[in-house]
């Protein structure tokens, strides 16, 4: 509730400040970066943008700054828990252990006995994406997953890790055999020229679909929330109020649901891509 009002308020500040400034300096109306109609979808203001005023290198690197702060936060939390670990855990260690164990149990239902090996990578991916998605709903926050570069880099990491898993677990020959559809008799040997390009295209299409799905969902969700904040502002605009009606509250709940599901889907699909590379499957 408070968060919604803060978000509304901060959009109000940024929306009205340029026009006040323009009136004060008599520059006329060329508008701020948030009031124009032709710069793409609406955005809520974020901390970096407010500090730098939308100029300079920090405003261009805002996604990277937020993504790095998320990872530094996780490194500090994990480092503290690991350095102070005890046999009888305290409340903080207990909470972290609960998260890790929940992730492990979930991955074990998909990967089976290999889950222990892949839980660190996939679990980190899940909590990293989840935190990045939630950042967009915090006042003055901005979720880095609305940039396709961030999601594409994670998808490329997953792609390289899956190929590495395949080559190291199956061997080079087994890997090419897997890509060729494991030909064992005459008919499947005849199908190799068809199946081999198809598998390669399939492998290359996976990171694209991972990156675009996360990017599109989170961007859509943030634009939706920003659009309803702007609608709430314009509903009270006739009396010049800087605080709008909180039209965005239902979409905050939708955003929480969507962020969790998208983080889960990214992790689950990465798990499945790794699983398809493991030798113990029969397809």
């Amino acid at each position, binding site marked *: 509730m408070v968060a919604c009002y803060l978000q509304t308020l901060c959009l109000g500040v940024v929306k009205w400040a340029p026009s006040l400034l323009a009136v004060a300096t008599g520059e006329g109306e060329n508008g701020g970066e948030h009031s124009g109609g032709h710069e793409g*979808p609406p955005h809520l203001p974020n901390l970096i943008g407010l500090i730098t005023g939308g100029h300079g290198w920090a405003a261009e690197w805002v996604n990277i700054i937020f993504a790095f702060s998320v990872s530094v936060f996780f490194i500090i939390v994990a480092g503290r828990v690991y350095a102070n670990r005890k046999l009888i855990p305290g409340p903080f260690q207990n909470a972290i252990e609960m998260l890790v164990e929940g992730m492990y149990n979930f991955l074990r*239902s998909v990967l089976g006995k290999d889950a222990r090996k892949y839980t660190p990578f996939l679990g980190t991916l899940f909590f990293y994406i989840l935190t990045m998605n939630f950042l967009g709903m915090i006042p003055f926050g901005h979720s880095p997953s609305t940039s396709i570069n961030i999601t594409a880099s994670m998808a490329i990491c997953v792609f390289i890790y899956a190929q590495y898993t395949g080559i190291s677990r199956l061997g080079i020959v087994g890997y090419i055999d897997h890509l060729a559809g494991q030909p064992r008799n005459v008919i499947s040997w005849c199908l190799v020229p068809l199946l081999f390009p198809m598998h390669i295209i399939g492998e290359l299409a996976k990171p694209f679909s991972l990156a675009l799905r996360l990017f599109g969902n989170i961007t859509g969700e943030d634009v939706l929330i920003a659009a309803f904040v702007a609608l709430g502002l314009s509903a009270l605009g006739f009396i010049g109020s800087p605080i709008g009606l909180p039209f965005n509250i239902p979409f905050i709940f939708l955003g929480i649901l969507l962020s969790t599901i998208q983080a*889960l889907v990214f992790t*689950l699909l990465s798990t499945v891509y790794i699983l398809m590379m493991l030798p113990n499957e029969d397809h």
Partner: protein
Amino acid sequence: MDFQSMLSLSLPIGVGIAAIGSGVGLGRAVGSAMEAIGRQPEASGKIQTAMIIGAALIEALTIYALVVFFILQGKIG
């Protein structure tokens, strides 16, 4: 009709058509999963996992339309 008004007319319609297709697909997938869970409640964990994967793959098609929308939105002007 010039290029920009054609874009601003057709982009939302395109996203809407994609949403219709993926809505039909999601309805079928989730409905079948619910029926399967109702028939075999003990297998609900596995069915849910498979359902989420399928739903993500279906929904990605609408997201592609949305991404095209975001890409071409700057050209409307």
